[in-house]
């Protein structure tokens, strides 16, 4: 049934359809509407057998989720930004223990400087925690990925993060197809934990493991991710059979067939990228794109297949590894090991900066002529940064950088 709905509300609906037994709620922008949405469904009586707990922090939210999952409950929570960082220790813990928790990330920048707007710095910081990470391109996909995430998590006994762009998706209203309870029940079997705190079969969870066995446990964590590489497309096909639409999978290709330039990105910006590609194709440019849905596990082979015949790759990414450049681009280069193809990194949309079609088209055109530097910041105010660099060199006590830049922008002149 098609319903006009906010992205967050849609995720709350999807989560409810998956019949979670424990949901931990703690607000942080731009994720708050999701847990509030689940709370509203609890109140409406739509969530039978679900404990909805309002906790005191994200650290508590995931820790409660860890306990609940270990006790055999299908468990869900959501967070963003500072919240994900605050729960970092528990994020690694949940993965290390192999607890199939599903968590939504309403992607938002991390501070300092404080910023509530969208980029991918938060989930990227947790990319190696051992969770599966799926990135939604649209709100329909965000909704669908949650239903797939529970099945994936529980089959592998591995936690899954579903990442969706804060505001751009979480707060956007769209017409969405909300599946029926019957279909979701048919798709998602009841949770059969591989480990559970059961008085009839007592054991403890959280062993101390020394050098004699640590590597083996970690090896198996990697192996779980490799299994996910197979399972994600399989679950995607079953999903299509039941619900009649494509959602999820490892990557989505767009016009890559004869493309000389291929753009790679994660999440909602792929919509804008496709629009630009359509325009450029009309003018005869050989350009296409790949949207990475599964960032962990990282689909090395599938990406290589999709990219290897191109002449160049442009990675548009909403996160920055200071001192290196792009996080996604580094991973893409890994997929292209042994293949001599330039991979350009374009850092875009940090802290919610709008990624415009005009700017993207300029970058893609420059790339087409191999005029791009290895690392570029989309729409960077070069004047502002140059002045700050000079100023900091000149004056030892040059003050807080964020405040200086803001003052420069407000004054419209340089200090």
């Amino acid at each position, binding site marked *: 049934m098609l319903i006009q709905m906010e992205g967050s509300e849609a995720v709350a609906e999807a989560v409810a359809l998956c019949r979670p037994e424990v949901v931990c709620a703690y607000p942080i922008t731009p994720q708050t509407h999701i847990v509030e949405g689940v709370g*509203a469904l609890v*109140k409406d009586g739509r969530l039978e057998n679900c404990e909805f707990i309002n906790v005191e922090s994200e*650290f508590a939210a995931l820790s409660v989720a860890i306990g609940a999952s270990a006790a055999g409950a299908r468990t869900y929570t959501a967070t963003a930004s500072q919240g994900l960082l605050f729960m970092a220790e528990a994020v690694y813990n949940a993965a290390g223990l192999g607890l199939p928790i599903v968590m939504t990330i309403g992607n938002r920048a991390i501070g300092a400087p404080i910023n509530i707007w969208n980029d991918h710095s938060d989930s990227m910081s947790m990319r190696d925690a051992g969770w599966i990470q799926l990135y939604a391109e649209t709100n329909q996909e965000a909704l669908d990925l949650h239903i797939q995430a529970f099945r994936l998590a529980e089959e592998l006994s591995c936690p899954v993060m579903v990442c969706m762009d804060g505001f751009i998706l979480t707060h956007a209203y769209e017409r969405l197809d909300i599946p029926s309870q019957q279909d979701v029940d048919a798709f998602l079997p009841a949770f059969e934990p591989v480990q559970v705190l059961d008085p009839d079969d007592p054991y403890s969870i959280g062993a101390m493991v020394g050098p004699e066995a640590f590597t083996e446990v970690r090896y198996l964590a990697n192996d779980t991710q490799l299994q996910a590489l197979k399972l994600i497309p399989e679950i995607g096909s079953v999903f299509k059979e039941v619900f009649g639409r494509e959602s999820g999978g490892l990557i989505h290709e767009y016009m890559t067939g004869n493309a000389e330039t291929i753009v790679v990105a994660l999440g909602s910006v792929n919509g804008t990228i496709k629009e630009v590609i359509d325009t450029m194709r009309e003018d005869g440019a050989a350009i296409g794109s790949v949207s990475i849905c599964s960032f962990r596990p990282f689909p090395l082979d599938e990406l290589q297949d999709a990219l290897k015949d191109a002449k160049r790759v442009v990675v548009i990414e909403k996160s920055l590894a200071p001192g290196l450049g792009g996080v996604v681009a580094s991973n893409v280069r890994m997929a292209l090991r042994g293949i001599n193809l330039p991979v350009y990194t374009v850092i875009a949309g940090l802290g919610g900066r709008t990624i415009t079609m005009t700017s993207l088209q300029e970058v893609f055109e420059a790339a087409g002529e191999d005029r791009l530097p290895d690392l570029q910041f989309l729409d960077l105010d070069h004047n502002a940064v140059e002045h700050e660099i000079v100023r900091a060199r000149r004056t030892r006590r040059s003050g807080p950088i964020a405040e200086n830049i803001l003052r420069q922008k407000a004054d419209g002149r340089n200090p």
Partner: protein
Amino acid sequence: MSNIEKPVYLEEKLEEIQASGHLEYRSKSLPTWCPGCGYFSIVEGLTAALNNLSIDPDETVVVSGIGCASRFPFFIDTYGFHSLHGRALPVATGIKVANDDLSVIVVGGDGDAFAIGGAHIPHAARRNVDITYILFDNGIYGLTKGQTSPTSVLGFQTTTSPFENHDMPLNPLMMLLSYGASWVGQAYAGHPHHMAGMIEEALAFKGFSYLHVLSPCVTFDKTSKTYQNLGMSVRPLPDDHDRSDVMAAMAQAQKTDAPALGCYFEQPRPTLADGLNDIAARAAK
């Protein structure tokens, strides 16, 4: 102090503020709080107290966490530090330890303090860090638009408490008294003059001073800690209250239905700096 202070007229107030000299402590940024928010009177109270104590803005740092309350440093012209949600106290401890000459004031909301940041309060109190902690208690998370906080009353309805809040609210005054805070008081944003006096006392005290300010969130709380409800229930501490008696302070702190305003407890003792100086002196021998 009566239950309801005499009405304040804008013109009189403006004249009074201009004459007072504490406008110097106001920054050029106008507060972004909702009209009617209790926090305005806390800015007023703090600037008045700093002015009365002749503490210069450049000898003062206001440290906050995250929340509506924590936007406070932007609206006052002292040094300011807007830190992470729940981390204002340890940041302030660091500032005070590194520069004991600064007057360090910590501000924040009940969520910042008692939910995500709860773990730091006992330690700042027991170490007796010489700072003043002004806690703005509206019993709700304001900045994230109205969710249940650890000081929300039983039965309170928000989006994170389907039907109503079933979790017992914390009693911050009892907590601070048992954590060993050496100065503990309570004020109400609807009684700004009394509050300014309390802030002044808390600032003048050497050691960890904790001022709990009851402050309505007019936008997201229409039923619980409103001006009307608080105005009807607050009362002064009894005249014969003995502020050196922790048990008497606890007895008063238990009376949450009729929150008493004033200084509950005061007991000077060596501060964190005294302990650190002792280590340095003995190490130097």
